[in-house]
């Protein structure tokens, strides 16, 4: 097993390698400001070319029922559907609903876990945007508690 220090040293080499490779497949992956400026779930989905959102049992959102701290809320999005282009993780009541957008390629599962900030209790969404623009979602409520001593 490589040590952490080896990882650090190697990273320089890899950085150069990736820079020269240029990621042609992901040329479209420039940051979509509109998506992150959108206030609502639907507007964020639209920014990525998705249509009206519809609930689907083939999409799954994971998250705790209660988050002890809104600063770090583990959220996951996944789908069993084939033909999904993008998976979005959103928190409805955040100032900007969109947390993260993942391009789904053939080389990865349509299943991502990340952690989000939540200002208050809210529904959280996973939205799968399909090749034909259909936008399918799952949602669940996450309660955010006031932890600590209130100070």
């Amino acid at each position, binding site marked *: 097993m490589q040590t952490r220090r080896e990882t650090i040293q190697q990273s320089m080499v890899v950085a150069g390698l990736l820079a020269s490779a240029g990621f042609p497949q992901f040329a479209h992956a420039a940051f979509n400001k509109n998506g992150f400026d959108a206030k609502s779930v639907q507007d964020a989905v639209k920014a990525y070319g998705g249509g009206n959102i519809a609930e689907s049992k083939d999409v799954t959102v994971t998250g705790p029922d209660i988050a002890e701290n809104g600063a770090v809320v583990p959220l996951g999005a996944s789908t069993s559907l084939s033909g999904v282009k993008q998976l979005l993780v959103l928190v409805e009541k955040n100032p900007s609903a969109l947390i993260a957008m993942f391009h789904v390629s053939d080389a990865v599962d349509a299943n991502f876990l990340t952690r989000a900030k939540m200002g208050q209790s809210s529904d959280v969404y996973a939205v799968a945007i399909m090749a034909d623009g259909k936008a399918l979602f799952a949602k669940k409520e996450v309660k955010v*508690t*006031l*932890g*600590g*001593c*209130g*100070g």
Partner: protein
Amino acid sequence: MKKMTSKMRVILAVTSASLVTLGCATGPSVAELNTLTQQIVKASFRDQGIVKASTLINTDETNKVCSEADALGKPLDEKTAKLIEEINMKTIKWPSDGKFIGDWKEGERIAQNGRGLTFTDDDKTVNGGNCYNCHKIDEKEISYGTIGPSLHNYGKIRGVSDPNSAASKPIVEYTWGKIWNAKAYNACSNMPRAGHGGILTEAQVRHVVGLLLDPKSPVNQ
């Protein structure tokens, strides 16, 4: 800044010297350990923001006696406990306008608030009562502590249907007094002396009493 550091060093040197003296043969006595602890406190804590190091060294007799009893694991004898309770009873400031019951909604906000008086607060911070840190109060708030007893249905259990009635007077006064200075009723209580310690104002204490005793308060539903 530099002056302060050299002063600190001198104090630390004194502390270490006393440690060395204490470090021989049988070990220090209880009195020596108490003295050493006070020296270490003096050398270790400093002023920061609104909190002055002197408040720690000049803490009152109640805290000194109770701390020592706690450290030795022996509760106070009855006589000392009574004496401390009497001293604290005398500090209770009763409502200047004779009104004991404030707005329970304000009281709930104060009970929720745990802020104020730390070395990262400023003198403009509105102090909270820290009540939910230790007590269950309104049943709807699930984030409550268990260091103190549940206060849910506090007034209801004690039969207070009209807090302004003569029948309710003893319990109303006790509630005010307990919040103002808990040590008047239990010498070494864990509960802060909210009024006496300058944590809550008279108006704030009134609102918290309202939260506990107003029949319309969620506490009594």
